[in-house]
């Protein structure tokens, strides 16, 4: 069925996450109250007629290092999530804006074609940062703008983990 699907590739539990760790170290100087950990994952947004088993094959055979990584299919972030002011785990997704060259996506499309899956019309790549935990949404927004993205070339989306979990549950 035609649709837009997001595949999140993240490190398996217990496997080192150098990007998340590095960002956490960089943020120490900001002394953000309560921040305990940052986890990083890679996002792939696929557009096309893709069955669940095809998406799983793309993830397993192309996007994931099976030794260190795992994936989640369909974790589409709601872009109109309710504003939250309370403490919690916040997720910041960063995507290239439309029209900005996304080099990795070109390689992914080629890889998908090499898997004999022809029904993908577009791929975009992005980054997901999961902050455990932040005092408020505003802190997450500030980090998204000042540290994680460049408004000139990136779109950013900030959500609470709880919202995402609920939305994800509703969708499934």
């Amino acid at each position: 069925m035609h649709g837009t699907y997001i595949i999140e590739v993240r490190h398996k539990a217990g496997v080192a996450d150098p990007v998340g760790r590095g960002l956490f170290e960089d943020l120490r100087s900001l002394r953000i109250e309560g921040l305990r950990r940052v986890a990083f994952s890679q996002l792939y947004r696929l557009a096309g007629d893709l069955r669940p088993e095809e998406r799983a094959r793309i993830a397993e055979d192309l996007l994931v290092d099976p030794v260190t990584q795992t994936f989640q299919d369909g974790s589409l972030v709601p872009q109109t999530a309710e504003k939250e002011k309370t403490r919690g785990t916040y997720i910041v997704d960063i995507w290239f804006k439309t029209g900005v060259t996304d080099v990795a996506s070109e390689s992914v499309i080629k890889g998908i074609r090499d898997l004999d899956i022809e029904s993908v019309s577009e791929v975009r790549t992005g980054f997901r940062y999961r902050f455990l935990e932040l005092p408020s949404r505003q802190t997450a927004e500030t980090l998204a703008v000042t540290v994680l993205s460049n408004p000139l070339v990136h779109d950013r989306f900030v959500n609470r983990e709880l919202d995402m979990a609920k939305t994800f549950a509703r969708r499934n």
Partner: protein
Amino acid sequence: MLTKDSPLVQKIAILKGSDSQLLEISRKGLLSLNLQEMKVIQAYFKKLGREPVDAELETLAQTWSEHCKHKTFGGVIEYEEEGRGSRVYDNLLKSTIMRVTEELDRPWCWSTFRDNAGVIAFDEDWGIAFKVETHNHPSALEPYGGAGTGIGGVIRDILGVGLGAKPVLNTDVFAFAPRSLSPKLIPKGVLPPQRIINGVIAGVRDYGNRMGIPTANGAVYFDEGYVANPLVFCGTVGLIPKDKVEKSVQTGDLVVTLGGRTGRDGIHGATFSSAALEEGITSSVVQIGHAIMEKRTMDVLLQARDRGLYRGLTDCGAGGFSSAVGELGAETGVRVDLEKVPLKYHGLAPWEIWVSESQERMVLAVPPANWLELSELCGSEGVEATIIGQFTNDHQLNLRYEGETVGLLDMEFVHEGMPRVHRKAAWYHPVAEPKSAKRPRFQQRDYGSTLLKLLAHPNIAAKKWVVRQYDHEVQGGSVIKPFAGFDQRGPNDACVFRPRLDSIQGVVVSNGFNPSYGELDPYWMAACAIDEALRNLVAVGGNINHAAILDNFCWGDSQDPRELAALVRACQACYDIAKGFGVPFISGKDSFNNTWRDPNGKLRSIPRSLLISAIGVIKDITQTVTMDTKQPGDWIFLIGETREELGGSHLWKVLDKPPQGTVPHVQVAKARECFELLHQAIGKGFVRACHDLSEGGVAVAAAEMAFGGEFGMDLDIHKALVPHAIPDSALLFSESASRFLVEVPPMARPGFEALLKGYCAALGRVTKKRTLILRNGRTRRILLKQPLERLRAAWETIA
């Protein structure tokens, strides 16, 4: 004839435009054309009896941009200097920098100032091409993408020189604001230094490493003046067969685009890079590079070159097809069918296709008979090649889209029609006259702590966290790499590599950059940059008699008479000093209007910055030396005179005081002879280690040599050659030019001293004890005594 009322084009009404309307058209269209240029365009179209269309105005804006045409350098400058009268420079570039090359007329300079890079002879059959570019404004806005496409662009310059050179080395020099800069000093809308630094370093790293090209030479410099406008210099060296240095285009040749597809990325990059950085920039000016695509393009090109499948080529850089195709067809004329250009996505207007600066694209002039073979070759490597037009003989630029003419200009007007700028430059000496400088006052115990502070200063410290991110081993030709000595602890002065692994001949690449002198005296700043680049080259064994240099000016507001006067002085120094050394310029690039608004809204210029990059051929790579001490008991000689020249020095920076005093001067005749003699000494095997003296003077150089080799030194700095008596602080930290510290084995001392008689003084010896001792032999007092571990720890501070 232009197709009438085509929906594909937009007419721009300028024929009846007033001055203010013309300027508004330029401003709104991001054309960066000044009033004089708009009026010349208006007059041209009045003669044609019609309004211009978008593609035509865009073509002129790109071709006439400061980035492409070097308006300031090529203009007429009336220079006036306080107390010394005036002089008119009719084309500053030709009358200073290019004049050196013309007057020296070196037979081994095969191509200078007329192609994408300069080319000098490596041996009888091969040449070495070298080009350094800047990518400042894009890197300020999107550091990763901007810097990555900076190195990608200069690699394409090398691929596009002559019929194509194989890239064999990358260089990079960056200038940033310090990471510790207070947020209050960061203007609104500007990325914090930390993000710019990390992004730029990663962008150049990812592109260069993925292309499989070693990066073994460079520098990182910090100054608050680069807060909104970092400098990103990227250079590439290429190897080219002698019979491929010339290119041509003939009528009937096909215009072929090869490599990446075209999108909206980078539109207005050339005109944008010629303007001041203000808020409100659109994302369309940003390019993101694709190193793997460029690697494939490179692989195809070099094969096609060797098979003789094309007659001419150039890269698509600033201005996109408008500059690349326009340049190739300048002498013939060209017709381009824009609908044939492969696009990344639909919806681009013809003018957008024409000026897009999408990366990884090359343009070739291909004889029709060769097309099939070229097409098959490209297909075999997965590289897209497309015929988009043909070179004609009508001396016109004819742009078509699906049969309709969407732009028609005379080539002569495109390339010769631009009016020359006339500007005034006025130089008056700085208010704080250097001679009135107060000497820094030291207690004896301060010398050691000052040295530690100097070693930890970001401009002197190791910066291994940056350098180690770059692959300096790939291709297997690296001989002298960024670090040397015990556990790779010391900083080398230059890199040496073998572009041909079947030859013992090598190439040495070095650079000189000292913006801190520019505020006090741009003339001596430029002189010192040349001296430093050549000094570094000689320090590893290079020969200035087979060396060439490149200039990269990054300047502030070129319409400000004082800034322009500073530029004139720097250019005049380039002529005087390069001519004095007998070293020609072979290529260069300028970047003006590096200005920004500070948090108070005041327009600020970056520090006056001139990067000099030097390249030379070494006959035998076994006759090179590194900077680390090698053997206890060896003598340490100081070559060159030390004067009290602390103006703009790093001593003032660590003392947190204004950069007062006399900027180091270059006594070029003496320096040239000294450099030649030192080269001979290294060739004769008299020298075991050699290190140039720059930031921080003797003390810093001695410390670096000592911890580099893990052997101490005991030196009497009062044995240094001094024309006049100077205080201990100057002997230790003065940055006088043209000096080296040299390690000489005892057996070689007589020969070394005889050869460098009058230029050298033995200060002391290398010691087994891991301590650096610098003493005043006259008073028998130890000025400084520091264990090597402490010195190294300071130097390896991550700033």
